[in-house]
Protein backbone atom coordinates (compact mmCIF):
# COMPACT_ATOMS: atom_id res chain seq x y z
CA UNK A 1 0.00 0.00 0.00
CA UNK A 2 1.25 3.47 -0.81
CA UNK A 3 2.13 5.69 2.12
CA UNK A 4 -0.36 8.40 2.88
CA UNK A 5 0.86 12.02 2.84
CA UNK A 6 0.81 13.88 6.11
CA UNK A 7 -1.62 16.60 5.01
CA UNK A 8 -4.32 13.97 4.53
CA UNK A 9 -3.66 11.63 7.44
CA UNK A 10 -3.67 14.17 10.30
CA UNK A 11 -7.03 15.85 9.46
CA UNK A 12 -8.50 12.41 8.78
CA UNK A 13 -7.32 11.19 12.20
CA UNK A 14 -8.77 14.26 13.94
CA UNK A 15 -12.07 13.76 12.13
CA UNK A 16 -12.17 10.06 13.08
CA UNK A 17 -11.50 10.76 16.77
CA UNK A 18 -14.12 13.54 16.86
CA UNK A 19 -16.67 11.31 15.20
CA UNK A 20 -16.02 8.52 17.68
CA UNK A 21 -16.47 10.82 20.67
CA UNK A 22 -19.65 12.36 19.22
CA UNK A 23 -21.26 9.02 18.42
CA UNK A 24 -20.38 7.59 21.82
CA UNK A 25 -21.92 10.70 23.47
CA UNK A 26 -25.09 10.27 21.47
CA UNK A 27 -25.52 6.61 22.30
CA UNK A 28 -24.69 7.15 25.99
CA UNK A 29 -27.41 9.82 25.99
CA UNK A 30 -29.78 7.25 24.50
CA UNK A 31 -28.96 4.98 27.42
CA UNK A 32 -28.95 7.56 30.20
CA UNK A 33 -31.90 9.90 29.61
CA UNK A 34 -35.10 9.36 31.56
CA UNK A 35 -37.97 9.93 29.15
CA UNK A 36 -38.62 8.97 25.55
CA UNK A 37 -38.86 12.56 24.37
CA UNK A 38 -35.42 13.39 25.72
CA UNK A 39 -34.00 10.11 24.41
CA UNK A 40 -35.23 11.07 20.97
CA UNK A 41 -32.74 13.84 20.37
CA UNK A 42 -29.56 12.20 21.66
CA UNK A 43 -28.67 9.81 18.78
CA UNK A 44 -29.23 12.49 16.12
CA UNK A 45 -25.77 13.74 17.11
CA UNK A 46 -24.30 10.50 15.79
CA UNK A 47 -26.63 10.45 12.79
CA UNK A 48 -25.55 13.82 11.45
CA UNK A 49 -22.12 14.90 12.68
CA UNK A 50 -20.68 11.43 13.32
CA UNK A 51 -21.49 10.12 9.85
CA UNK A 52 -20.47 13.43 8.25
CA UNK A 53 -17.05 13.42 9.89
CA UNK A 54 -16.31 9.80 9.01
CA UNK A 55 -17.32 10.42 5.41
CA UNK A 56 -15.12 13.53 5.22
CA UNK A 57 -12.18 11.50 6.54
CA UNK A 58 -12.93 8.77 4.01
CA UNK A 59 -13.06 11.32 1.16
CA UNK A 60 -9.69 12.75 2.29
CA UNK A 61 -8.00 9.34 2.52
CA UNK A 62 -9.28 7.91 -0.75
CA UNK A 63 -8.57 11.15 -2.63
CA UNK A 64 -5.00 11.16 -1.31
CA UNK A 65 -4.50 7.50 -2.25
CA UNK A 66 -6.03 7.67 -5.72
CA UNK A 67 -4.48 11.02 -6.63
CA UNK A 68 -7.73 12.63 -7.75
CA UNK A 69 -10.87 13.71 -5.94
CA UNK A 70 -13.23 10.86 -5.02
CA UNK A 71 -16.65 11.96 -3.77
CA UNK A 72 -18.88 8.93 -4.14
CA UNK A 73 -19.07 8.71 -0.33
CA UNK A 74 -21.25 11.83 -0.38
CA UNK A 75 -24.11 9.58 -1.54
CA UNK A 76 -24.35 8.07 1.97
CA UNK A 77 -24.42 11.54 3.53
CA UNK A 78 -27.23 12.64 1.23
CA UNK A 79 -29.17 9.45 1.96
CA UNK A 80 -28.87 9.89 5.73
CA UNK A 81 -29.65 13.62 5.59
CA UNK A 82 -32.86 12.87 3.71
CA UNK A 83 -33.78 9.73 5.65
CA UNK A 84 -33.13 10.34 9.33
CA UNK A 85 -35.61 13.24 9.82
CA UNK A 86 -38.33 11.10 8.23
CA UNK A 87 -37.72 8.31 10.74
CA UNK A 88 -37.56 10.81 13.60
CA UNK A 89 -40.87 12.43 12.62
CA UNK A 90 -42.62 9.06 12.27
CA UNK A 91 -41.30 7.83 15.63
CA UNK A 92 -42.25 11.05 17.36
CA UNK A 93 -45.79 10.88 15.98
CA UNK A 94 -46.05 7.25 17.09
CA UNK A 95 -44.86 8.16 20.59
CA UNK A 96 -47.29 11.05 20.88
CA UNK A 97 -50.19 8.94 19.63
CA UNK A 98 -49.45 6.06 21.98
CA UNK A 99 -48.93 8.34 24.98
CA UNK A 100 -52.23 10.07 24.28
CA UNK A 101 -53.91 6.69 24.24
CA UNK A 102 -52.28 5.51 27.47
CA UNK A 103 -50.53 8.01 29.77
CA UNK A 104 -46.98 6.86 30.41
CA UNK A 105 -45.85 6.62 34.06
CA UNK A 106 -42.97 8.87 35.06
CA UNK A 107 -39.82 6.89 35.52
Amino acid at each position, binding site marked *: *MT*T*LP*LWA*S*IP*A*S*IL*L*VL*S*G*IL*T*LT*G*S*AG*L*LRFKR*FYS*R*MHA*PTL*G*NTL*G*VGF*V*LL*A*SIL*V*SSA*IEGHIVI*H*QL*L*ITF*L*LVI*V*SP*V*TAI*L*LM*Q*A*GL*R*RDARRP*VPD*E
Partner: protein
Amino acid sequence: MNTVLYWAGIFALGCFALALGCATLRLLRGPTPQDRVLALDTMYINGLLILLVLGIRFGSSIYFDIALLIGLFGFVGSAALAKFLLKGEVIEP
Protein backbone atom coordinates in the same frame (compact mmCIF):
# COMPACT_ATOMS: atom_id res chain seq x y z
CA MET B 1 -1.14 3.22 6.22
CA ASN B 2 0.07 5.89 8.58
CA THR B 3 0.56 5.21 12.28
CA VAL B 4 -1.59 8.17 13.38
CA LEU B 5 -4.44 7.15 11.14
CA TYR B 6 -4.10 3.53 12.28
CA TRP B 7 -4.53 4.41 15.95
CA ALA B 8 -7.29 6.92 15.21
CA GLY B 9 -9.11 4.15 13.38
CA ILE B 10 -8.67 1.82 16.36
CA PHE B 11 -10.01 4.51 18.71
CA ALA B 12 -13.00 5.23 16.48
CA LEU B 13 -13.77 1.51 16.19
CA GLY B 14 -13.71 1.16 19.99
CA CYS B 15 -16.02 4.16 20.41
CA PHE B 16 -18.47 2.81 17.84
CA ALA B 17 -18.46 -0.62 19.47
CA LEU B 18 -19.22 0.95 22.87
CA ALA B 19 -22.00 3.01 21.27
CA LEU B 20 -23.41 -0.17 19.72
CA GLY B 21 -23.37 -1.75 23.19
CA CYS B 22 -25.26 1.21 24.68
CA ALA B 23 -27.89 1.00 21.96
CA THR B 24 -28.22 -2.76 22.50
CA LEU B 25 -28.81 -2.23 26.23
CA ARG B 26 -31.55 0.29 25.44
CA LEU B 27 -33.03 -2.14 22.92
CA LEU B 28 -33.14 -4.90 25.53
CA ARG B 29 -34.63 -2.92 28.41
CA GLY B 30 -36.49 -0.03 26.78
CA PRO B 31 -39.82 0.39 28.53
CA THR B 32 -41.90 1.36 25.51
CA PRO B 33 -41.88 -0.05 21.95
CA GLN B 34 -40.87 3.29 20.44
CA ASP B 35 -37.73 3.22 22.59
CA ARG B 36 -36.81 -0.11 21.07
CA VAL B 37 -37.37 1.16 17.55
CA LEU B 38 -35.20 4.21 18.29
CA ALA B 39 -32.46 1.93 19.64
CA LEU B 40 -32.64 -0.17 16.47
CA ASP B 41 -32.29 3.00 14.40
CA THR B 42 -29.18 3.97 16.37
CA MET B 43 -27.79 0.46 16.02
CA TYR B 44 -27.89 0.45 12.25
CA ILE B 45 -26.25 3.88 12.12
CA ASN B 46 -23.45 2.58 14.36
CA GLY B 47 -22.97 -0.52 12.22
CA LEU B 48 -22.75 1.69 9.14
CA LEU B 49 -20.07 3.80 10.86
CA ILE B 50 -18.07 0.69 11.77
CA LEU B 51 -18.18 -0.44 8.14
CA LEU B 52 -17.04 2.99 6.94
CA VAL B 53 -14.04 3.00 9.30
CA LEU B 54 -13.14 -0.54 8.16
CA GLY B 55 -13.32 0.71 4.57
CA ILE B 56 -10.85 3.49 5.41
CA ARG B 57 -8.50 1.05 7.16
CA PHE B 58 -8.43 -1.60 4.45
CA GLY B 59 -8.57 0.88 1.58
CA SER B 60 -11.34 -1.01 -0.20
CA SER B 61 -14.40 0.56 -1.80
CA ILE B 62 -16.70 -2.44 -1.39
CA TYR B 63 -17.41 -1.36 2.20
CA PHE B 64 -19.09 1.82 0.98
CA ASP B 65 -21.56 -0.14 -1.11
CA ILE B 66 -22.36 -2.33 1.91
CA ALA B 67 -22.79 0.80 4.05
CA LEU B 68 -25.15 2.30 1.48
CA LEU B 69 -27.21 -0.90 1.47
CA ILE B 70 -27.32 -0.96 5.28
CA GLY B 71 -28.52 2.65 5.28
CA LEU B 72 -31.29 1.92 2.78
CA PHE B 73 -32.57 -1.23 4.46
CA GLY B 74 -32.27 0.25 7.93
CA PHE B 75 -34.39 3.19 6.87
CA VAL B 76 -37.01 0.89 5.38
CA GLY B 77 -37.10 -1.19 8.56
CA SER B 78 -37.29 1.76 10.93
CA ALA B 79 -39.94 3.54 8.88
CA ALA B 80 -42.06 0.38 8.65
CA LEU B 81 -41.81 -0.24 12.41
CA ALA B 82 -42.63 3.39 13.23
CA LYS B 83 -45.57 3.33 10.84
CA PHE B 84 -46.79 0.14 12.46
CA LEU B 85 -46.58 1.72 15.92
CA LEU B 86 -48.37 4.80 14.61
CA LYS B 87 -51.29 3.28 12.75
CA GLY B 88 -51.40 -0.42 13.62
CA GLU B 89 -50.62 -1.41 10.03
CA VAL B 90 -47.77 -0.61 7.69
CA ILE B 91 -49.59 0.11 4.44
CA GLU B 92 -53.00 1.63 4.88
CA PRO B 93 -55.74 0.53 2.49
